[in-house]
């Protein structure tokens, strides 16, 4: 087994970090932060497939996250579905929606695509805020714990391990995809769309496919959040959250699965650390964003790897 490939070495490292991290999590608050990192990382790993590898921007993925969260919540609260069934139905529903809207949207390019995905996300968010009989509106709604027959999943410790396992699975799936014919097709589209097309790649199909996958990752993470935290508000569906997710991906490093995880970790931690700055928080956060992108335009992990590679030579 070659431990230097991402699929073995990288996954093993990530598993080790997840296994050992609880030693450093001194109280429930830090467990919560760790879970939040894991959930964001799952979304970012999916989003990175779309943005980093296939080169298609989305400024609306919080919409899919929100649909996952509210779908699970509404089906289990308002219609009394068992959470597992609600999760399955919601995920399938979001996949279908992404498939339907993805076709026309992904024909667009560049800033037009950015606008369309942004618009889609905002529309979802406005619907969730406005349909308050179903969603509780701006006040949000509470969600029951996730139960399986004879088993209730509750508490930070339990959810830490669930999130950790889900993240490992998400990373494994992403790494598999990237290193496969379908994944090469995505990267080829990023490299040269005509080059890919004349090689027999159906560009629309490939783009829509990865759009659906990234939407499913986001939706699943949304459903997890709903059941884990027991309460959801429209904040997680907002334009700002979409931007936050893209920033995590770009920050960690586009076209790098582990970069996406690192980006999610950094940008989830940063605001926690910056709270001590009180009213200066936004200014510093914005400044850090600008500076990082100027000095590491390719993102943290790829820039770091590049520097290490140079040193070795």
């Amino acid at each position: 087994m070659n431990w230097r490939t991402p699929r073995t070495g990288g996954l093993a490292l990530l598993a080790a970090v997840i296994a050992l991290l609880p030693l450093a999590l001194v109280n429930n608050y830090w467990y919560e932060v760790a879970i939040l990192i894991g959930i964001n990382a799952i979304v970012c790993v999916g989003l990175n497939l779309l943005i980093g590898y296939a080169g298609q921007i989305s400024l609306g993925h919080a919409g899919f996250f929100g649909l996952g969260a509210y779908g699970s919540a509404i089906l289990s609260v308002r219609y009394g579905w068992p959470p597992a069934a609600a999760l399955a139905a919601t995920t399938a529903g979001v996949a279908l929606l992404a498939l339907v809207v993805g076709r026309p949207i992904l024909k667009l390019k560049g800033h037009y695509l950015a606008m369309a995905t942004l618009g889609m996300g905002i529309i979802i968010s406005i619907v969730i805020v406005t349909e308050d009989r179903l969603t509780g509106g701006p006040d949000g709604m509470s969600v029951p714990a996730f139960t399986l027959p004879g088993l209730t999943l509750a508490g930070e410790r339990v959810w830490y391990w669930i999130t950790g396992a889900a993240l490992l699975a998400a990373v494994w799936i992403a790494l598999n995809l990237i290193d496969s014919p379908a994944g090469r097709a995505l990267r080829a589209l990023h490299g040269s769309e005509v080059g890919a097309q004349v090689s027999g790649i159906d560009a629309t199909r490939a783009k829509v496919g990865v759009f659906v996958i990234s939407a499913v990752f986001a939706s699943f993470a949304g459903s997890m959040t709903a059941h884990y935290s027991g309460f959801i508000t429209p904040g997680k569906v907002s334009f700002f959250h979409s931007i936050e997710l893209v920033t995590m991906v770009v920050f960690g490093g586009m076209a790098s699965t582990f970069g996406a995880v690192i980006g999610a970790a950094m940008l989830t931690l940063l605001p926690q650390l910056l709270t001590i700055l009180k009213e200066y928080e936004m200014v510093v956060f914005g400044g850090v964003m600008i500076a990082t992108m100027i000095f590491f335009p390719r993102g943290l992990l790829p820039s770091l790897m590049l520097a290490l590679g140079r040193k070795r030579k």
Partner: protein
Amino acid sequence: MNAPQLEVTALSKAFGGIHAVDQLSFEIEAGKVHSIIGPNGAGKTTLLNLLTGVYAPSSGSVRLEGSDVTGLEPHELAARGMARTFQNLQIFFNMSALENVMVGRHLRERSGWFTAMLRFPRLTAGERESREEAAELMRFVGVGEYIDADADAMPYGALKRLEIARALGSKPKMLLLDEPAAGLNPTETHDIDTLITRLARSGVTVVLVEHNMRLVMGVSDHIVVLDYGRKLCEGSADHVRSDPRVIEAYLGSEGLAAC
């Protein structure tokens, strides 16, 4: 005489006021080397773009092996056996050289999403085969030394041949090359010459767009001369070489004697 492999009828493409390809008709016979020549801006690249579905024609039709393929998407035409290279390289610079060629095999691979994401065992076997065949193709076109390289670390001449290897990955029936020798030195050009001859001998139809007359005159079974998007004349190398209109429009007075 057997039916032509490709039949182009009154094909036209206009960009605003420019008739880049204008009422063009010609036929391409299977297994031969066909060249398309003409001065800069004559519409050669536009023609290849039309034939491979990169542009949709303004009017006219294209029939491939008897069926109408006008307006099909590039990937659909690729599935019917068309492959090409580009005048302005369309390499995937975000990938390794080997992966570039593996993409060329896309149509012959298991490209299902679930197979990929869950990495079913049958994928692994296919991947190994894909790697080996891609490496073989790279050696075939003469860029074997770059098998482990990243595409963005390769020199221009090697990239041009990498594109040919990628195009061959699909085992095409027809290969369209847009100025494969442009920017290459005489040795490299000679290699391209040999490569084209070998491909034609193995049964692949070659459509060659090229400015290098020595190369064109040497390998072509049939030549179409374009000028301002129209067909000026066509025929064998000897026939084209001696056509006064060609000499006039394209090669200038000192032209063909040199070939």
